[in-house]
């Protein structure tokens, strides 16, 4: 099958949906000219200024604007180049967007997609580096998805656009350049299903977003000494359908949650609770969690590297669970600012 990048998969999804349905439009700060890592390049030229628009720096108001357009017959896609900027819109998201359909007794529907970019960069510091999926997932009425593969990026985005509810699509910027097999034609991926990214039998690693890439690296290294981890890409954060996760842990009896976010009160806590409730008898080891250090994100490289979780932490956690001696990692190469994962998955 054809291989394209995550970035092109996103762009293709928007392009195909805008072609298919003239109610779909895309907007946000810098969307037409800067092109959001290339994912919206050319849309204004193709679809015009009414369907691809720049906005004032007014995040809260522009999320409310999307709500108004959505209840009145359009299907907006609102893009924020950093999730940190979406925080300005918590009033609209939490008080209005998430609740509007419910508090109007279902008389109004809110087909609004919000794309947000997360991830690491060149010393992004504490206000350009957050992830925050659990913050949004905590709110009833919001759907939250985190695609990792290019195929999921396209399929989840198309499903989000066609869904009659608000959906937040969280995209890690290091994933934009990775390649994977993506069907050319339009298709959807369910907004409420985790899936097994790699099969294994010894330990289940439930991962989100970029942490799937780290888990793949850990898997490759551990496989050399005969340890097979199963990677479950959580993918749909809210609503959380834990079926694939529970099924996997029932098989392996061990679970690590590697979340691309802070641990405390995070998505990893939710997964750990569900696994503990539903796999209590089968667990051979307590559910362990890996995530960001519980600090704001520092800027300088060596502290930033310490802040973010990685494949090494996953490997060390697996070794502890299986009572193995530490693997020699001195000759391994891990992903960094200089060494992006290019795929394919």
């Amino acid at each position, binding site marked *: 099958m054809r291989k394209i990048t995550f970035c092109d998969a996103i762009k293709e999804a928007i392009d195909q949906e805008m072609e298919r349905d003239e109610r779909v439009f895309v907007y946000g700060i810098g969307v037409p000219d800067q092109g959001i890592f290339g994912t919206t390049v050319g849309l204004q030229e193709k679809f015009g200024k009414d369907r691809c628009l720049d906005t*004032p720096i007014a995040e809260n108001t522009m999320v409310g604007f*999307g709500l108004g357009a959505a209840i009145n017959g*359009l299907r*907006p896609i609102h893009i924020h180049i950093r999730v940190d900027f979406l925080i300005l819109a918590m009033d609209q998201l939490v008080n209005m967007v998430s609740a509007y359909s419910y508090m109007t007794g279902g*008389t109004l529907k809110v087909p609004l997609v919000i794309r947000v970019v997360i991830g690491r960069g060149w010393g992004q510091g504490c206000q350009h580096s957050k992830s925050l999926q659990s913050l949004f997932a905590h709110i009833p009425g919001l759907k939250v998805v985190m695609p990792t593969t290019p195929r999921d990026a396209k399929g989840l985005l198309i499903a989000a656009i066609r869904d009659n509810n608000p959906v937040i699509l969280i995209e890690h910027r290091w994933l934009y350049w990775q390649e994977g097999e993506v069907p050319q034609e339009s298709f959807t991926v369910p907004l409420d299903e985790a899936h097994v990214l790699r099969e294994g039998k010894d330990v289940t690693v439930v991962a989100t977003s970029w942490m799937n890439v780290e888990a793949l690296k850990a898997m490759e290294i551990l496989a050399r000494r005969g340890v097979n981890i199963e990677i479950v890409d959580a993918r749909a954060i809210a609503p959380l359908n834990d079926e694939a996760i529970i099924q996997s842990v029932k098989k392996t009896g061990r679970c690590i949650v590697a979340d691309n976010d802070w641990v405390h009160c995070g998505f990893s806590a939710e997964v750990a609770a569900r696994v503990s409730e539903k796999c209590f008898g089968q667990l051979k080891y307590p559910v362990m969690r890996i995530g960001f250090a519980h600090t704001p994100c520092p800027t300088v490289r060596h502290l930033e590297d310490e802040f973010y979780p990685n494949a090494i932490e996953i490997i060390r956690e697996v070794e502890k669970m299986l009572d193995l001696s530490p693997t020699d990692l001195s000759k391994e190469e891990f992903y960094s600012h200089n060494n992006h994962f290019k795929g394919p998955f």
Partner: protein
Amino acid sequence: MLSGGYQKITRPRKVKTLNTRNELNIGLYQRLYLARRCEEKIVALYHENDMRTPMHMSMGSEAIAAGVCHALKESDQIFGTYRSHAIYLAKTLDADGFFAEMYGKDTSRIKGKGGSMHLCFPQRGFMGASAVVGNPLPVAVGAAFANKVQKNNKIVAVFFGDGTTDAGQFWESVNVASLMKLPVLFICEDNELAVHSPKSTRRGYQSISNVISQLNCHVLEENTTDAEVIYNLVTKAIQSIRIAEKPCFITLKYYRYLQHVGIKEDFQIGYRSRAEFEEWYKIDPIKVQREKLHNLGLSEKDVAIIEKEIDTQIGRSIEKAKKAPFCGTDELYKGVFA
């Protein structure tokens, strides 16, 4: 006569109309009287503790609700805040749905999930109300964008108090509507108060009209309790929105008769005086309009017929709401997602 033919109340056949001005003023009076009498019923019945929702009463502001909503078409859309009884009733004329929701009954289309602060009737153009100051404005602006794109000629009016003009979303919304040339009426219902705080503690400028006039936005203001004056002003504003393709910001003064929230007077607190109320009550919008109907040649009997029809409707609506069942508890989990 009320336009559009969708309302439950119509001009009583026995009342003769002499000309279009009479028709207009009867229609305005029906909206005024409906809003006032529904709230008087709330005041009378609230002690029974069956309407379990915080009441932010509209009393005193009815001329704005009636004047603006009568100038709008059925298909035009409005948004409001927690204080939206009068605009809901003036726009939808839906006493049945209003009381069904006040009592939180299964017969309400929103099934008690909204209450007094979140009324909604999109089919009649009432698109929702919010209890957070400022946040309906962006939604109204986005709705107007959708109307413009869909070329359906609908006007959106968003109602808010002068306290809202302190909020960031107010300024952002007026800017976006001005920038994008959207058909929005910003209706500032100015009662001088944000809860109990006067403008002097909230504003670092003298005149909101002067400030907003710097944007690409029509600016109007009026200090009246005469619904017809407001109707004429808004009719002109709608024309100017269509001709000049830009939004309109209108400040309309009124006096809030009751507490910020609740069904009682609050002159004993001391932030305002009864004397002030009494001055305003001399020009109470319902009284003003009733006198006008007489001046236009309607007899006391004619007016009484109009009033009786509305009172009968309200009585029926309350009776139906009281008798209606509550929804099942399974309704709690329904409708989180569409």
